[in-house]
């Protein structure tokens, strides 16, 4: 496996140089040269018109897929309530399971969760439920060990979890112990039916580049998936499924860390990750006080208030409101961006919203490239007008 450059065939045209997403190619003395760091993505091979670049096909799949069957979704809960991402993953998981003609299972850890049946209504064939007071709060150490034990026992071929703060912190530990690949923060999942492989697509370089990743030789194939990227299915109350209660083994599963205290952030009434409508503000607001304009608009619309990183960094609004690569990923029905330029890191967190409205006085602001509707104008005029019209309807 590897990349080979046939210098006899290379004419030094340089067509391959700009397509390398990692900038590893250069032309030296009329011949192409490759620097270290190649991931064999194949972009240069495609660009070369002289067949001078050869990437050997990835080695044949080992016979791993037979011993592992089924798709698992880690159904995250908090305070006994299942998170939205659990249902979103079940919708996607169902689709993948149908393609692979296999079972879909949800795995749920917690205590006294009353909605476990909903997991079946939303697509699961089986639910592995580990119920214990020890698991009531999110204990990453216990979760990691318990999940490893279950995976070793039942051998699923695919495991999906939300790319939440919990998922991003403990799923890598599971993958490390199981010695398998894990793809972070996926926004697209589909199946290569020929090889029975999960194709995992995710943004890298802050959303500048998308990469499709496979895990060929190890099972399970694991991904964390961004919340709000996939849509949940309508529940089917008639669906049949099996709830399998698993005992929590306190003796063998222990925690090295201890959760001493939890302090909730109670800044806002409507949380942005759950809101149907978000009114979001950026540096165009000029100063912290002007967020009041957006709060008024938000209150007549029943919306939550979001923000760009620039204004969070300025201290105009707390971090829990930040949308984007280093903030939250949101996917509301309506996202109204006021005075936000639309930097790629911001877009990474909101571009899958159903309808995007941009209000910005600069017609060249990149936010207009993703906007469904745009108003080029001063937000200090537009926002109050909109608020007024909504009040009067």
């Amino acid at each position, binding site marked *: 496996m590897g990349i080979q450059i046939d210098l006899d065939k290379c004419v030094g045209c340089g067509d391959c140089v700009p397509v390398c997403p990692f900038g590893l190619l250069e032309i030296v003395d009329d011949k192409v040269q490759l620097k270290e760091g190649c991931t064999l993505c194949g972009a240069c091979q495609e660009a070369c018109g002289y067949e001078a670049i050869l990437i050997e096909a990835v080695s044949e799949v080992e016979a791993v897929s037979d011993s592992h069957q089924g798709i698992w979704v880690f159904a995250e809960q908090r305070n006994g309530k299942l998170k939205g991402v659990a249902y979103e993953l079940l919708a996607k998981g169902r689709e993948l399971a149908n393609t692979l003609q296999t079972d879909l299972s949800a795995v749920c850890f917690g205590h006294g969760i009353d909605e476990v049946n909903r997991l079946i209504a939303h697509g699961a064939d089986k639910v592995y439920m580990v119920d214990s007071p020890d698991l009531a709060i999110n204990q990453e150490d216990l979760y990691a060990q318990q999940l490893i034990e279950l995976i070793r026992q039942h051998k699923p071929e695919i495991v999906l979890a939300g790319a939440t*703060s919990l998922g991003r912190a403990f799923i890598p530990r599971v993958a490390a112990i199981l010695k398998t690949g894990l793809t972070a923060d996926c926004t697209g999942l589909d199946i290569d039916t020929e090889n029975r492989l999960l194709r995992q697509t995710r943004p890298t370089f802050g959303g500048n580049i998308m990469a499709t990743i496979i895990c060929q030789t190890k099972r399970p194939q694991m991904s964390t998936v961004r919340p709000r990227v996939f849509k949940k299915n309508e529940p089917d109350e008639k669906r049949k499924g099996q709830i399998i209660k698993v005992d929590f083994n306190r003796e063998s599963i222990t925690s090295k860390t201890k959760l001493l205290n939890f302090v909730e952030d109670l800044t806002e009434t409507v949380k942005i990750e759950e809101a149907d409508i978000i009114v979001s503000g950026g540096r165009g607001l000029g100063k912290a006080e002007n967020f009041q304009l957006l709060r008024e608009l938000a209150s007549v619309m029943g919306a939550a208030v979001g923000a760009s990183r620039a204004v969070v960094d300025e201290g105009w609004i707390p971090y829990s409101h930040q949308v984007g690569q280093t903030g939250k990923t949101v996917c509301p029905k309506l996202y109204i961006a006021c005075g936000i330029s639309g930097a790629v890191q911001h877009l990474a967190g909101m571009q899958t919203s159903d309808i995007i409205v941009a209000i910005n006085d600069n017609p060249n602001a990149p936010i207009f490239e993703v906007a469904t509707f745009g108003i080029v104008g001063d937000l200090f005029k537009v926002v109050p007008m909109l608020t007024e019209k909504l009040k009067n309807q």
Partner: protein
Amino acid sequence: MNVIVCLKQVPGTAQVKIDPETNTLIREGIENVINPFDTYALEEGVRLKERFGGKVTAMSMGPPQAEGALREAVSLGADEAILLSDKAFAGADTWATAYTLASAVNKLGQYDIIICGRQTLDGDTGQVGPELSEMLEVPFVAYVSRIEEIADGQMRVQRMVEEGHEVIEAPLPTVITVVKEINVPRLPSLRGIVKSKSAVIPVWTVPDLGVDQSRVGLAGSFTKVIKVFFPQRVCQGEIFQGELGNQVECLMGKLKDAGLV
């Protein structure tokens, strides 16, 4: 207090632009920087040393030019720096990266805390820290926003989750990842800059680490990138025209049609 800070050199992605003609990254004039999130990790390490004594070792796996990032780390307060560099390390995924870092940590010997950034700008996974902790079989705490106390071999930290803050206690040694809320990194000191110029930065290769070639780099990576492409932003968006009042009226109409207001 012996602190190891894992840091990576990355292209300063904030400036990355797409060439609209060729649809490729414009790389000219982009300098390599210490991954921004890792500067908080380094600063926290240096602060721990100032509070408790001991030393800070900056560690990076990367191509030879990553030495630049380590020199910068020395100018920012790291006492020592080690570069893990070998052709065989190239193309590593997070598992192979964590494995290589873990091997180097074991070679280094005794430590109390390993600090990683929350995520990198390029790879952007946040997986290396937690994977590293499992390979070293030590506790792990993610998203630390404050180190409250370290005493009697225990450390108490605050960390950020979606819903708020948690206070967590963990025995040392521990691996943590930090968020930018934890501190404001300092600028290099004059003394630091002088020191960084003459600092000797050892380079550890596969034989130095005694690792299995097939476990590192591309060969040791379980995940493979099979395709890389640029996100297509097809916009059939509508920019309203005319007098502002009418534009707002148009918008209202559209939102009504969509059943949103």
